[in-house]
């Protein structure tokens, strides 16, 4: 028996058949979408893993270099040298569409007023260790930027995969079986009605014949 009350008529039957067609097509499409999303997602996860390790390693090296620098220089001096950045890093964010998920793409441009490199201080009063630390940090920064992009992509994609998966499951295990069940119920009910009508007609015919001709079988 169907859960919800369906009126066993031909019109409802046609409607249900139409819905079943749509649901099956939607199910197939969503399943394909899920599979493709999953494939992309696994690529991104792998990339993320590699980048994360790279960034972790790079940063810890940079921090080590930085603490070397701070050991040689006085804290005031260190702070003073780094107080004013020579360049401003600005970020350009565009979007890329992965399976209708909008993911950010970052591109940074550093605007340095002159071409004297990235170091925001003069060489006279600072130590070489500081230069080293900054250039290490600069090197790891590009990875960090890509990590940000990949990680955000991963999160957004994960959310969408979850959504798609739920939809696929809802269609596959709830909606489609329910529709099929209802269609079967109506078909059976209609067949039943039809045979009962037939029996009734035969009966009526018999009665009419008997009345008219006193016909006995």
């Amino acid at each position, binding site marked *: 028996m169907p859960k919800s009350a369906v009126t066993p008529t031909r019109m409802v039957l046609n409607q249900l058949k139409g819905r079943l067609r749509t649901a099956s097509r939607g199910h197939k499409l969503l399943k394909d979408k899920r599979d493709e999303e*999953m494939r992309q997602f696994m690529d991104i996860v792998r990339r993320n893993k590699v980048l994360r390790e790279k*960034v972790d390693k790079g940063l810890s090296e940079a921090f080590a270099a930085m603490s070397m620098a701070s050991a040689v220089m006085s804290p005031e001096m260190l702070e003073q040298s780094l107080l004013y950045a020579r360049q401003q*890093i600005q970020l350009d964010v565009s979007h890329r569409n992965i399976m209708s998920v909008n993911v*950010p793409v*970052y591109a940074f441009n550093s605007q340095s007023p002159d071409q004297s490199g990235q170091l*925001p201080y003069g060489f006279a009063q600072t130590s070489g260790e500081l230069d080293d630390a900054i250039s290490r940090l600069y090197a790891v920064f590009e990875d*960090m930027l890509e990590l940000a992009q990949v990680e955000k992509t991963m999160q*957004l994609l994960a959310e969408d995969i979850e959504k798609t998966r739920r939809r696929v499951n809802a269609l596959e295990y709830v909606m489609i079986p329910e529709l099929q069940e209802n269609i079967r119920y109506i078909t059976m009910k209609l067949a039943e009605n039809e045979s009962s009508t037939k029996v009734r007609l035969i009966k009526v015919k018999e009665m009419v014949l008997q009345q008219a001709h006193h016909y006995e079988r």
Partner: protein
Amino acid sequence: MYKIAVIGGPDTVIGFKALGLDTFPVRTGEEARHIFRAITKPDQPDEYAIIYLEENLAEALKGDIARFKDSPSPAVILIPGKDGSLGLGQSALQAAVERAVGANIL
């Protein structure tokens, strides 16, 4: 144009200042949360697209980070602090995988 923020301990963020990022040195989780909320307010003149957050502050800002997990901007990325990696970045990855696949397959 978007900007990049770094929130972390004073020793951690000082280097990033030289790169031209906006740095916010904090000492406690409380302070970090305050700053995080201030810079993620919707009506900012200049928006931050990426916020790098030192790992050891992540615990204090758990709810705030989760709020931005599903929105395209900003990206909140955990970075290891001066004292080395806590592995929280890896766990974010695992959480995403678990969410997408339904099981941890890594």
